[in-house]
């Protein structure tokens, strides 16, 4: 297969997958953008670290959803097993919340959107196995997110007035299980990948389907473009277009 044809194939596959994951109910679903930029450094063959800034939008790309700064470190325990830990400072634009009375029609409370920070810690284990040019990996990540207490505005329709509402500090544990397949195509610098990830608290809370490609230039500049479809309890399904850049040294 000629190089140009291979590229066209990859691009076509990517578009096809994107189209396949965009259901007809797109209008009812939301869409957003994920943009990330970071640096990573390999101390040796086993130990590496990284820093990343992430930006995420919602409301059909029009509203900031969150921004985050993260740092992580990973260590290759075995050739097929990597352990890691990380911390993220997340600044969330929490979406509005409108509740109704028991009759389902009369307003009860309205809490407009508000900004708040969250601290997220995680530890993970990633097992990977390569079959020829296809690498299959399973990542298990335990994540603890702490939301500090915050006083926010709330309009109580019963009282007919604004009041201060304290959203109390709360921690949340999530087990994230991700199964990923990567394809290293010979003489091609675009590596497609696909993954499915399940977030479990007491029950399955969030499922993410991702397809994308990675492109690395001179082993220093890594680019990533992907599509993510997310199904989360209590929230509209959301289609993300993502792109990322990592400077490796």
């Amino acid at each position: 297969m000629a190089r140009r044809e291979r590229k066209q194939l990859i691009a076509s596959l990517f578009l096809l997958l994107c189209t396949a994951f965009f259901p007809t109910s797109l209008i009812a679903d939301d869409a957003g953008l994920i943009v990330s930029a970071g640096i990573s450094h390999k101390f040796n063959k086993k130990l590496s670290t990284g820093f990343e800034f992430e930006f995420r939008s919602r409301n059909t790309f029009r509203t900031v959803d969150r921004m985050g700064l993260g740092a992580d470190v990973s260590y290759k325990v075995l050739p097929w097993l990597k352990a890691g830990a990380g911390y993220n400072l997340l600044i969330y634009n929490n979406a509005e919340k409108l509740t109704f009375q028991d009759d389902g029609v009369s307003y009860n409370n309205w809490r407009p959107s508000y900004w708040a920070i969250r601290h997220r810690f995680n530890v993970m284990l990633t097992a990977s196995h390569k079959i020829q040019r296809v690498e299959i990996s399973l990542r298990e990540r335990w994540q603890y997110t702490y939301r500090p207490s915050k006083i926010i505005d709330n309009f109580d329709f019963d009282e007919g007035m604004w009041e201060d509402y304290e959203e109390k500090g709360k921690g949340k544990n999530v087990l994230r299980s991700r199964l990923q397949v990567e394809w290293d195509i010979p003489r091609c610098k675009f590596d497609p990948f696909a993954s499915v990830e399940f977030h479990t608290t007491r029950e399955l809370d969030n499922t993410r389907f991702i397809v994308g490609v990675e492109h690395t230039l001179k082993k220093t500049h890594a680019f990533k473009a992907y599509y993510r479809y997310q199904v989360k309890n209590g929230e509209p399904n959301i289609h993300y277009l993502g792109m990322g850049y990592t400077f490796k040294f």
Partner: protein
Amino acid sequence: MKKILYYSMVLTTMAMGMASCVNDDTDMADIIAQYQVEPASIELDFSALVEKPDVPVTDEADEAYNDYVENTSWNQVIEIQYSGDMVTVTGSVPGVTVSNSGAHVVVMNMSGPVQFIVSGKTADGSLKFYGDKRFQVLLNNIDMTNPHGAAINNQGSKSMYVVLADGTTNHLQDGQEYTMVDDEDQKAALFSEGQIILSGKGRLNINATGRGGLRSDDYIRVRPGVNIHISSTALDGLRANDGIILDGGVINIETTGTGAKGVRSGGPMTVNGGRLIAISNGDTRITDENDLTDTTACAALYCDTLLTVNGGTLKLKATGDGGKGLNAKWDVNITGGQFIAVATGTRDIKKPKGVKIDRNLNVTGGYFYTYSRRSDPLDVSGTTQVAPGYKDYSVKPKVITIAY
């Protein structure tokens, strides 16, 4: 490579810039504005009222004929003057005996119509009437407190005309604990088994601390000219078992007791004129009996049967938990006048409502306003009929107004 980096940065900046522009909150400004309405102001108002001339009914066939003190000749007069623990009785009428123990006076009236002129001051006195003859009590600057029960108590079943002498100010107060007599009721500071008809151009202040303020086990009629202020920390302010007719006058009522009503009418209530302001500040009363918990909400006006407003001004306010401006168990007809009901209480136990009607509301004239801060301003179990011709008919989450 530089181009890729450049375009990536431009794209990222554009995407982030675009995203930061739009807030995805629902536009609630107009909706919230409808909920942030302050209620019509209702405060006690003792100012004089310009009223239509009070023309007594002269047709003896009219059922209201006997409610007019002018239609009776009051040739027989007895004066009772209080002074501390002492009482001075002037005048005598055959068939009428007046006895006293200190300042506690008992009148046995077996005669015809008798006018009793009451004046003076006592901190431990009372006036009780027996006999099935209608009579008149002319309050002529009386200041009476009975620590043991009702200040004035009529055990007869006939009309008691309570006339407030022109320009006088009269005070009646009951005690926190009532000393009861077998087979006798005393339910308020001013109580009558028979009708009470209030008239005159004086002022009457009633302070109820043990039971109700002004109560009849029959009906009560209030005529133009009177100025009445009832303050109750115990039970209902103004109550009549068989109905209330307001033809005029200035009436201010405030209650703070749990479950108390500013005005309670067991029979039909008709408002033809005057200005009644009732403010109920009590919370819901909770009683436990035989392992059953019962709750009774306050109301500025509680009406067991038909309420008709033909004229005058009715201002009702409930500020306690679950308190209603008007709680009507039967139809309510507004044909004229001004009806304003406000509920500002909390809804911890009961729902506070401006107007709650178990049957139908018919508005054909006048002005109707109801407000509830924390619940429905108007709760009608039956139908609400608003006759055509109104100038304003506005229904908002907290306020409903109808104006003709």
